């Protein structure tokens, strides 16, 4: 009888040890081990109380990101190099998932998060995507860290707003990508004596002039396979027709698209532009659309700051083979942007190391090498724009420093919830192939109600 007892009690003790080992590390644990010792048939019970000393946290950082493509991989390496320089003892465990914009990354990350096995930190865009993780309760608010770093003072207000949900900053942004940039083939523009367009009418005129001189060219390149390319062009038109306040209101779901004249005008203008766009657009990804400029099939493309890296990889020098202007510049010169950011997950295995990591993310030592390679602007305004090797980003950074409020969230770090944005891209991409204004207005208007944009985007504050 007492032998059985011995087995049961030992099993319980082992089980409790195993369970205790499953607890998050760094917690002081007390384990009560009950031993039953058989002494001449009379059971004697001894209790031994073992108190573990707090174990120092392992210096390890598990990180999820999607910077795997050419140019991005080098930027990720620069990022980790900066971190290693400051904290050489930390072991970095990368979990990179390939796929531009984090399409596949989201699949893996979501699985890990909902299984309760979060990495320490993961890459996320600001805006709606970040909000979906905050709503899920996966991130820890970083008010203390931001206060410690005085981060809100060194970055533009709209950037801080993009990562602040319900009054708390949840991540540390390390860059800003600008969406509404028009790149153009400089030798061609010089040859045809064209000035880069900064308004819609100028764009149409330039497109006409290019078409007249080079009938085989599609003046404006577009790659809409990933769908968002079309929304980029449309955003630029919306921004000019409606102005910044309208743009924000629209994506906050405060405009009744069905009856709205501005939205209709913007679509009609977009329709006017479509004959000047390459018909191959549904099959091209964004880099392939930029490739049309290099191959001489197109003269212009509207693409984000990441295109600079692409053009350079094709052997083009900024200011020589290609130039860039933000588009549009009327009624105001607004930059549509999204940041790449990192936060601290709830239940992160190594919270202390992660906080060290976030401190480095916020530092110029990380931002300068990483952003110069990866293609965005610096999140910090106190870094010299001259750090950028190209005149395009030098000019953009200088503009942002002088006008830090002229930034609005773009399609990727969207204002509207992701469920809406994905469907909206489809609608706009379909419009390019079959430009039916009435049908598109109806579709988009339905999307706004179906995906409850008004409730989902209420968090966004601008300016």
């Amino acid at each position: 009888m007492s032998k059985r007892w011995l087995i049961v009690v030992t099993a319980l003790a082992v089980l409790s040890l195993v369970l205790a080992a499953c607890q998050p590390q760094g917690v002081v644990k007390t384990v009560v081990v009950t031993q039953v010792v058989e002494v001449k048939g009379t059971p004697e019970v001894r209790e031994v109380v073992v108190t573990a000393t707090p174990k120092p946290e392992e210096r390890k950082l598990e990180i999820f990101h999607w910077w795997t493509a050419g140019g991005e991989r080098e930027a990720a390496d620069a990022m980790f190099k900066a971190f290693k320089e400051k904290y050489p003892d930390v072991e970095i465990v990368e979990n990179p998932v390939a796929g531009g914009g984090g399409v596949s990354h989201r699949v893996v990350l979501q699985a890990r998060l909902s299984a309760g096995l979060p990495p320490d930190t993961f890459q996320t865009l600001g805006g709606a995507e970040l909000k979906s993780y905050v709503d899920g309760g996966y991130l820890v608010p970083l008010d203390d860290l931001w206060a410690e770093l005085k981060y809100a003072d060194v970055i533009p207000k709209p950037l801080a707003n993009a990562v602040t949900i319900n009054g708390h900053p949840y991540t540390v942004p390390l860059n800003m990508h600008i969406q509404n940039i028009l790149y153009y083939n400089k030798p061609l523009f010089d040859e045809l004596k064209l000035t880069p367009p900064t308004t819609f009418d100028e764009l149409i005129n330039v497109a006409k002039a290019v078409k007249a001189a080079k009938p085989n060219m599609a003046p404006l390149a577009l790659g809409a396979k990933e769908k968002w390319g079309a929304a980029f062009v449309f955003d630029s038109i919306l921004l000019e027709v409606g102005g910044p306040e309208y743009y924000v209101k629209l994506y906050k779901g405060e405009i009744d698209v069905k009856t709205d004249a501005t939205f209709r005008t913007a679509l009609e203008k977009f329709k006017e532009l479509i004959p000047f766009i390459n018909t191959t657009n549904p099959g091209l990804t964004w880099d392939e659309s930029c490739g049309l400029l290099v191959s001489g099939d197109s003269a212009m493309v509207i693409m984000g700051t990441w295109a600079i890296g692409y053009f350079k990889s094709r052997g083009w020098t900024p200011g020589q083979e290609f130039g860039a202007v933000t588009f549009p510049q009327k009624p105001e010169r607004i930059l549509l942007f999204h940041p790449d950011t990192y936060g601290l997950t709830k239940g992160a295995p190594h919270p202390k190391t992660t906080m060290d990591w976030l401190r480095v993310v916020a530092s110029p030592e990380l931002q300068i090498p990483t952003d110069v390679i990866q293609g965005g602007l610096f999140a910090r305004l106190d870094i010299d724009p001259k750090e950028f090797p190209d005149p395009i980003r030098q000019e953009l950074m200088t503009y942002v420093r002088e006008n830090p409020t002229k930034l609005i969230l773009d399609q990727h770090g969207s204002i509207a919830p992701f469920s809406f944005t994905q469907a909206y891209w489809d609608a706009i991409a379909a419009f390019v192939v079959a430009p039916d204004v009435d049908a598109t207005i109806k579709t988009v208007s339905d999307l706004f109600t179906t995906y409850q944009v008004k409730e989902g985007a209420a968090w966004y504050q601008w300016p």
Partner: protein
Amino acid sequence: MEKRAVRFRLGETLVFLGPLLIFLIVLYGMLLWTIYVSFSDWSGTAPNFRFAGLKWYQLMVGLDRFWVDVRNNLRWLLLGVIPTVVIALFIAYLLEISPIRGIEGYVRTLILYPVAMSFIVTGTIWSWMYQPDKGVLNTIFRALRLDFLTSNFVNDPKTATLWLIVIFIWQYLGFAVIILQSSFRTTELQEMIEAATVDGASKLRILFDVIVPNIRSGLLILVSLLLISTLKVFDIVYIVTFGGPGYSTDVLAFFMFIATFQQHLVALGAGLGVIIFLIAFIVVIPYTLYAFQRWFE
């Protein structure tokens, strides 16, 4: 003693039952779980199992995209299966009656190659072929002065799905030919063909009146395998068009992926999974069961 015997039998049974149980739990457990999630209110990154009734199904049937998907899936089922079987039948027969000895082996290898490749590879190759500007097909047509044959292929929302199905047919043709050829090679059938030839029947007559009625089991299994493959189509769409232009080439499986992981509407994604299951249940499963019964008869 008796006790030990029971234990032994139990262990033996478990060896055989274990895999089956795991299979049942993984397959049907997940199926039930998906159905359960589709009735929950899970939208967003965090699980939310609050019962929402038909909320997400209502949203689903209100979406234009959903109906485009259903239409496309039906197209895949019909146009992916029937032409493949018909063309494969002719090719298989041609190989059988080919007068040149030895060529059959080469041709069969040639058309079997695509099956060995993944859709990711063939999809990429075909999207280069279909490229309207500089793609292989249009360039060839232009060079041959056959400009009327040039097309926008997968960039034309009206016909894009059909061009995707062409890829599927191309890829599965060799597989279909192999299955049909093997079903030609029964002694009875060969004797019947011989008899018909002696009687002076034409080659076509032999194909339709002698071969087709006698290879029913081969046809049944081929059709059911093709039905399953077309219903679960995802990779071709993902690689070649990403559902575009707009969502004109979208299929249920692709929308399920977008809804679950890009839109974070997990309940909607689960609901779409249930719809795919229902289609399979109504169309494919009864047919497959029937076909397998015939196969083993």
